């Protein structure tokens, strides 16, 4: 059991098993029942940030216009995130096996 400051994980770079950069942690998906708050997964990537700022209504039109590669949001289930070194979060799988949540 290690104790981590969740707020300090925000913006940390995540690498996969081959040390390839995946993106930055932007959001935590949690479930809050029976007075317990369980972390289900971590949202990684630019559009996770946009999602956090709930700025889609502003960004989407621009994104459509620019055809930017902004839909690179990964949802990392808690089992696949290795936080043993909170400074450098790592995936337990290669990037290719991640699923896009959008």
């Amino acid at each position, binding site marked *: 059991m290690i104790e981590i400051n969740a707020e300090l994980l*925000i913006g940390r770079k995540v690498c996969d098993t081959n040390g390839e950069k995946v993106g930055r942690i932007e959001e935590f998906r949690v479930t809050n029942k029976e007075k317990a708050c369980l972390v289900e997964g971590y949202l990684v990537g630019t559009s996770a940030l946009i999602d956090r*700022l*709930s*700025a889609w*209504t*502003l960004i989407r039109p621009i994104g459509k216009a620019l055809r930017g590669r902004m839909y690179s949001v990964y949802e990392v289930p808690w089992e696949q995130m290795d936080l043993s070194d909170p400074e450098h979060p790592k995936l337990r799988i290669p990037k290719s096996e991640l699923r896009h949540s959008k």
Partner: protein
Amino acid sequence: MKKILQLALGIITSVGGFLEIGSVVTAAQAGANYGYKLLWAILLGTICLIFLVEMSGRLSAVSKHTIVDATRERFGFPFFSIVMLGIVAVAFLVLVAELGGIGLSLQILSGIGFRWWAIPVSIAVWLLMWKGTFGLIENGASLLGLVTISFAVAAVKMHPDWGSAAHGLLPTMPGDGKAKYGFMAVSILGASISPYLMYFYSSGAIEDKWDESYIPMNRIIAGFGMTFGGFLSMAVLVAAALALQPRGIDVEKFEQAALLMTPALTHWGFYLFAFSMLFACLGAALEISLAIAYFFAQGLGWSWSEDLDPSRDARFAFAYTIIILLGAIPLLFGIDPIKVTVMSMALTSATLPLAIVPFLFLMNDPIYLGKHRNGWLSNSVVAIVILISFVLAIISIPLEIIGG
């Protein structure tokens, strides 16, 4: 019925509270140097301000959050702290300018130098906050501020050439002295689009417990109040263009501005100017120190209300106490309030994106505003004006400094 009263009061207060040393000095200098040429800057700034104020009220009425609450919650503390540093630093300079304006008004009335007024003035302002309620500050000061309407009277009595005034509403570039002209335009924009007004207004909407039913009222107040206010700034510019420019008088010192209305309103001009500035700056000083204190309190989650006993929101009361006392110090050292004014106005437009860009994000946030989100019109108008003033600022401020 109650709503109609609030509506009238809201418009009156926003008119009475519109002018402050920034808008008067920048408009007077613009008129004295360039005649009607810079009217467009006031027009542009006022249009933008109408949209911004309407948005501030709408955000609070719908989401029950103030702008600062929402900024902290959406963007997180690290980003928020940057915004806070920038806004508060500039707002503090403006506060110094307003306190100086009160001191200068008292100086020309009493003949006692403004440095001597610094402490008494800041204590008086502090006492009003300490003892007063939000209603007193918002309404009382602004009602007194209605004396600034005399600027409009003066301007009209000097029979301006409406045709060329209308021409001034369209931007033009002068042959020489582009840098100075641009800098003037920037200061005017900064004086019209004053972010502290948004923070004050949105906090006011919470203090007055607004809900969605206030949205139409909010529209009208923002629209009419700010429009009339804008006319007052234009009146100052026109009066300066007629009274000072022909004589070749530039407004480097407050004493010169005091002659502004003497040709038009012979026996009252001088005193009307003095009292206009006194009340306008008093109102603004109160609003700004409140806005800064709100910024800290809301951003850091302290309890805040101007209607509570100071000890019930100790940190809030402590914040404005410190701010007002600090504001007196530069004046004690005799720093020229007019210099501070012009500089702080230019800096305001330079820091506008810091205040407005996050605000635009919030105004498009479905979680806060649901169906009351911004339309493309308000988004683009604000975005464009902010862009213009920012670019102008970034170009002309350095030029002004090195004397382009």
